[in-house]
């Protein structure tokens, strides 16, 4: 059974097809309003999340389908000690497709190994979050018209930021990409991603701690939040959380067609004043995420023979 656990589970051609489908949904939403009638999406969220769960649920409703929802491990059988494998087997009896978030890394893979219906990883700890990357890709595509020959800056928590790791992996498959990695020393991109992805594919990159220095070069600025839940030590979190705050002043040297992205939620790493800047794309990302999730649900249900 085909599931999507990692963004690299999708080929470049499949990403293209999903983007084309999402664009078609945007242009002709009525044509898709009954596409999943009679089908059920189970959203299993064992870790706090509002937006991703609502995005999946909104996606399924806009396709005319229904939603079964489990929000919070405290209210589910997981609190009684049920394994992820058993949960996946049980939910397979009720639903047609699963979207799952879990605090443990690899949980979605275990669910997929035991499920008889497709599983979409909606975030497994600090590991993967492929549908966020799909939202990012559609946003870049719509803002820049494609993925080739872009200088992309990633700023903030590049160590624990799973959205950063996934997007770097996804972009590494296109030509002419330049990466600029902006972070404090303690939150630098893990060396294995630099070695296994960036250096392996000969992608030009530079690392810096100074956002202002590189701002004029960037086509995309991908800001990230320093995530409290990824730290074992509260002191380290407090020391690093305000490393970078994007303000209108800092954007003065940026290109006029820069796209400022952020996977949200932000805490204070982007000033609210930036929201009015036409280069701010982070709320567009949210909407794009819903369209890409619609396209993915359609693709997986068709492949599973459930549409």
């Amino acid at each position, binding site marked *: 059974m085909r599931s999507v656990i990692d963004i690299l589970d999708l080929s470049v051609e499949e990403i293209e097809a999903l983007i084309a489908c999402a664009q078609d949904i945007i242009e002709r939403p009525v044509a898709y309003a009954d596409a999943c009638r009679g089908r059920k999406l189970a959203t299993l969220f064992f870790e706090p999340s509002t937006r991703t769960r609502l995005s999946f649920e909104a996606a399924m409703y806009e396709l005319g389908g229904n939603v079964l929802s489990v929000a919070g491990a405290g209210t589910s059988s997981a609190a009684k000690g049920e394994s*992820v*494998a058993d949960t996946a087997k049980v939910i397979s009896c009720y639903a047609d497709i699963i979207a799952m978030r879990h605090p*443990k*890394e*690899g949980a979605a893979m*275990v669910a997929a190994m035991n499920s008889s219906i497709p599983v979409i990883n909606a975030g*497994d700890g*600090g590991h993967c979050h492929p549908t966020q990357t799909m939202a990012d890709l559609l946003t870049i595509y719509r803002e820049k018209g494609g993925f080739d020959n872009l200088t992309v800056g990633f700023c903030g928590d590049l160590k624990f930021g799973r959205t950063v790791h996934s997007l770097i992996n996804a972009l590494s498959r296109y030509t002419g990409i330049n990466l600029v990695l902006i972070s404090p020393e303690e939150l630098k991109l893990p060396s294995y991603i630099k070695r296994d992805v960036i250096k392996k594919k000969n992608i030009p990159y530079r690392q810096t701690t100074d956002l202002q220095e590189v701002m004029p070069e960037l086509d995309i600025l991908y800001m990230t939040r320093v995530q409290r839940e990824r730290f074992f030590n509260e002191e380290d979190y407090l020391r690093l959380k305000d490393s970078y705050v994007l303000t209108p002043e800092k954007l003065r040297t940026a290109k006029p067609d820069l796209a400022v992205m952020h996977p949200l939620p932000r805490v204070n790493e982007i000033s609210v004043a930036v929201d009015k800047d036409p280069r701010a794309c982070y709320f567009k990302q949210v909407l794009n995420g819903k369209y890409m999730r619609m396209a993915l649900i359609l693709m997986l249900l068709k492949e599973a023979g459930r549409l």
Partner: protein
Amino acid sequence: MTVDSIKTGVVIDHITAGKGMELYELLGLGDLDVTVAIMKNVSSNKMGRKDIIKIDGDIRLNLNVIGYVDPGATVNIIKDGELIEKKSIDMPLILSDVIKCRNPRCITTTEQELRHVFKLSDRENRVYRCIYCETKGDA
């Protein structure tokens, strides 16, 4: 020093000097009720020094363990005093239940009876990664 030759069993030869005990542990040889000899720092024309393990008994070894710990080692199968097979061991692509994932956030720390599976991600540097969380594995 001499160690008796074996009639039927396995000789793991050309073990990098110092890796014999690690192999002994990971292969679970301490749990066997057959004679096992570990020879450390044996003189070798090819390697200078090497370790050798002799197992006096008709047993099946997990060759993936040997390939993971010391891919240059050779395995000789002895039957009725004759060498019937000599195997060179390469690094396995998949390691199942040989090492454990040490990432406290990995699903293997909580999921009941989940196998610890690693895949070879970098042959040159002999790096294995957990298939669930991609954390680097070590013995």
